[in-house]
Structures are given as structure tokens and as C-alpha cells.
């Protein structure tokens, strides 16, 4: 019993430490905080069922799963419409100018479409780094050396830029 209790306590600590970061990664990919929370919930449910919260790899696993799960969701065309509506509503709270609101929403959609066309690893690296993870954390989540992260990000940035240009010129 005490083992089960300490395991629960460890999971709660892990949850408190990582939930906002996991939501942050998903939000960076989906640009929709509500959908990002759905992804984060699924990720933690999966983690808790299959892993011990005391595992050293726990944060890395959560970050990688958040990036992959949200990228998978981004690629699901069915969700697009719902996402755009939610995005517009969220944005409406801050930007009063409807024209400006439309432009921001449109730009964000182009960027997410470009992200969805990228290979999973560089796309995940960008999302993780943009959401504030350090090079070391990105490296651990992707299973690469810390020294490789800079190059990986450089290439990912170039690819995203190219994809955004391609998307807007079509």
C-alpha cells in the first residue's frame, strides 16, 4: 500500500512540475489552448498507465509524447475547423480590430499547416524549443546529443521558413 501511495505522490509531483510545460508544447503546435489541454491529459493518462513517475526519463518522455501527439492531431484535417474557431475566440479577447484579428489568425494557420508538412523530428524540436525547453531538454526528449540540437534546430527553422513560403505562395 505504501508503495502505491508513494507512487501516486510521485506522479502528482511530476504532474505539477510538468503539466504546464506539456500543455505549452502542445499549444505551440496547435495554437489552441483547449485542444492543447486535451493532448496533455491524454499524454499524462498514457504515461501514468505504463510508466513509473520515478523513472528518470519521465520529463523527456512527456515532452516527446506531447510534441508527437499534438503534431498527429494537427495533421488530422477534421480538427482544423474546430481549431480555427477556438483560435479566433481566444484571440478575440485580446485583439479588438477585426481586420488585424483575421490577419493574425490567417498567419497562424499558414504556420501550423507548414509545421504539419514537416518531418516529425524537426517539427517536434521547433515546438519544444519555442515552448521554452532548453537544448538539453530537447536533446533528451528526442534521444540526440545536446551538441546536435543547434544544427537540428537550424535545419528545422530553414525547413519551416521554406514551407511557410511555399504555403503562402500557392
Amino acid at each position: 500500500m505504501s508503495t502505491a501511495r508513494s507512487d501516486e505522490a510521485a506522479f502528482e509531483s511530476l504532474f505539477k512540475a510538468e503539466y504546464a510545460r506539456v500543455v505549452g508544447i502542445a499549444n505551440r503546435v496547435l495554437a489552441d489552448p483547449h485542444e492543447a489541454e486535451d493532448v496533455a491529459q491524454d499524454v499524462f493518462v498514457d504515461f501514468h498507465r505504463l510508466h513509473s513517475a520515478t523513472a528518470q526519463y519521465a520529463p523527456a518522455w512527456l515532452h516527446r509524447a506531447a510534441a508527437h501527439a499534438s503534431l498527429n492531431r494537427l495533421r488530422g484535417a477534421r480538427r482544423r475547423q474546430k481549431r480555427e474557431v477556438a483560435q479566433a475566440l481566444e484571440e478575440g479577447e485580446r485583439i479588438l480590430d477585426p481586420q488585424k484579428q483575421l490577419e493574425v489568425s490567417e498567419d497562424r494557420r499558414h504556420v501550423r499547416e507548414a509545421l504539419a508538412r514537416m518531418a516529425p523530428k524537426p517539427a517536434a524540436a521547433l515546438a519544444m524549443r519555442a515552448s521554452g525547453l532548453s537544448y538539453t531538454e530537447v536533446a533528451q526528449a528526442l534521444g540526440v546529443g545536446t551538441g546536435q540540437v543547434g544544427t537540428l534546430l537550424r535545419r528545422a527553422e530553414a525547413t519551416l521558413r521554406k514551407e511557410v513560403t511555399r504555403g503562402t505562395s500557392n
Partner: protein
Amino acid sequence: MVDDPDARAGADAAHLGSCPECADRFKTFADDARSIASLLAVPEARVDIGRAFERVMSNRKSQPALVRFPILGPSTRPLTLGFVATIAAVAVLLVAFAAAGLFFKPTTVKAVPVTVADIQALSQLGDYGTITWTKEPQLQATTNAADASQAGGGLTVPKVADATLPSGLSKTVTYGAMSNAEATFTFSADKAAAAAAAHGTTLPKMPAGMDGATLTISVGPAVGEIYGDLQKPSSDTSSINLPQLIVAKSAAPTAKSTQVSVTDLENYILAQPGISKELKAAIQAIGDPSTTLLIPVPIEYATSTQVTVQGVDGVALGDNTGVGSGVVWVKDGYVYVVAGSIKRDDAVAIANNLN
């Protein structure tokens, strides 16, 4: 995104301080990175962690599974094909050492956790003797199931129920077959001693009769089908380009040994330096090693759960993120595998509806 201390570390940082050309280039990178960061900018999500935690804990699916793997620190090594090859080698060795005396024919499967240290320790066993193919495997790709069946010694290619295929799966299917193959490993006391000396380790004493003992493993024939465009190059060479889905059926592997008993062999292998307590415990907990096919699960990369497939026990690997998963089971003398870059639940559904 170049504001991390690791973005300019050590000698690079010193060089950037003294080389205007590189400093300029670095500034361009930094400007680029900033513009990408602004492209990806979004309003921060406001979260209520307390409520979110309650929601996760009240989700029935979040209850811990029976088999969970805690353990080791994260590895910074990428998951390479070489690593996978090592896993395959370990699988053969594990099958080999499960050989009960003179004969091994599995009727069920069980997952055993292996650590990187286990893999290294077990890989060295390959240096303790010589392996020779008495019958080399012939691999053949075909465009239809009938040809694959013919090349695979008459085995019927399992038929996937279309309704169970996840949406978005490639419609390109390649069939394949492998002929029966047989390899014999001959233990050598001299080679083992030389390998140990080369690694600077001391070996446990080899049981009497082990020098010159042979272990013969037979695998296949096997047939299968692969969904996905196999010609498409991977844009990411540092990770495995998993096919979208692979379904395979193989005659269960068999093993026979001469001169040594299974107990001697098991004790000798488990006494190797570097074998983890977890692996020892998992192996020793298996009731009848002569009928159990061990699936080595690298604990840093994969998780496994016991599932029921086609009415028998099976092992499901991976999770529901869609990154990669698989199911393995043994039924009526055949080993079946369903695996790919799909969710574990989808793999189990495909497995259960295979004809």
C-alpha cells in the same frame, strides 16, 4: 532560439568572440531563429493544474497497467538501426538460452525488460564462439500474396481486415517471404577467454562440457505484408523509418543444444558481468522456458503489456501516441507479429481480426 547557453559552448564561444565573420553568421542565425520564434508565437495557455490533475486521476484508463517499466536514466544515443540489430541478436540469444536441454519450441510469449547494459553484456556472448549458417535465409519480395506464400514454403499470408486499418494508412502493400534458416553456434573456451581479456573483464567459469557445445537455432519459413512506400527515403536518417504497418507469420523458432543442460547454460549466461537484476528476475520467474518465446523489451525506449490476441496470450509493445507499437503472439505453432507506426490499440485490433 539561439539564446541557450548550449547554443555557443566551449571552443565555439571563444571562436565567436574573436572571429567577426563567424560572429556575423551567428547573428544571421540568431535573427532567423527570432523570426521563427515569432512565427510560432501563441497566447500562453492558462491552466488550472489542480483541476487538470483531478481529471487525469478520475480517468479510468489512467490506472497503472500490471507491467510497467520504471528504471534508468535517459540515453542521449539515438535509436539507430545498429541498435535494432543488436536487439535482434539479443532476441536470438534469449531464444537460444531458453532452450530446455535439447529442444525448444515456444507455445506462448512473454516480455522481459532489458537494459542497455544487458544488451552490451549479451552481445559479447557472440564472441564466445563461432556462428555458422547451416541453411541461409532467402528473402524475397513479391507483389502478391500467392507468390509470397509459394516462396515461404506454402505458409498463407495473414489477411488483414480492411475495417481495422487506421485511416491514412498507405494503400501500397508489398508482400515478402523468408525461407527456413538454421544457424549453429559453437562455444569455445579459448574464444571466450580472449574476448574477456579484450574487454578487461573476468568471466564466470564455463561449465564442464561447454567448450565445443553447439546450439542450433531454426527460424522460419515466414511470410508477411508491409504497408507503406518502401522506396520513399527517410528525411530523418538518425531514426528508424518504420513501415506504416507490417504483418508477419512465421513458423515458431526452435533450438536444440548438445553437451550442456539448459540449467548450465542459463546459469552461465545470467552470471555474465553486466546482466541486470531486473532481467535475471524476469528470466527466473518464467515457469517453463522450453515453451516461452521471450520478447526483449528495451526499457528505455519501449513499454509492454500483456494482452489477449486471438484467444491466446500476447505481448503488446509501445503506446498510443502513434510513434510505434506492435503485438506478438504464438498460436498453433506459429509466431505472429503486427507492428508499425500506429497506435497500440489499432495494432491489437488488427491482430484480433487477422484471418
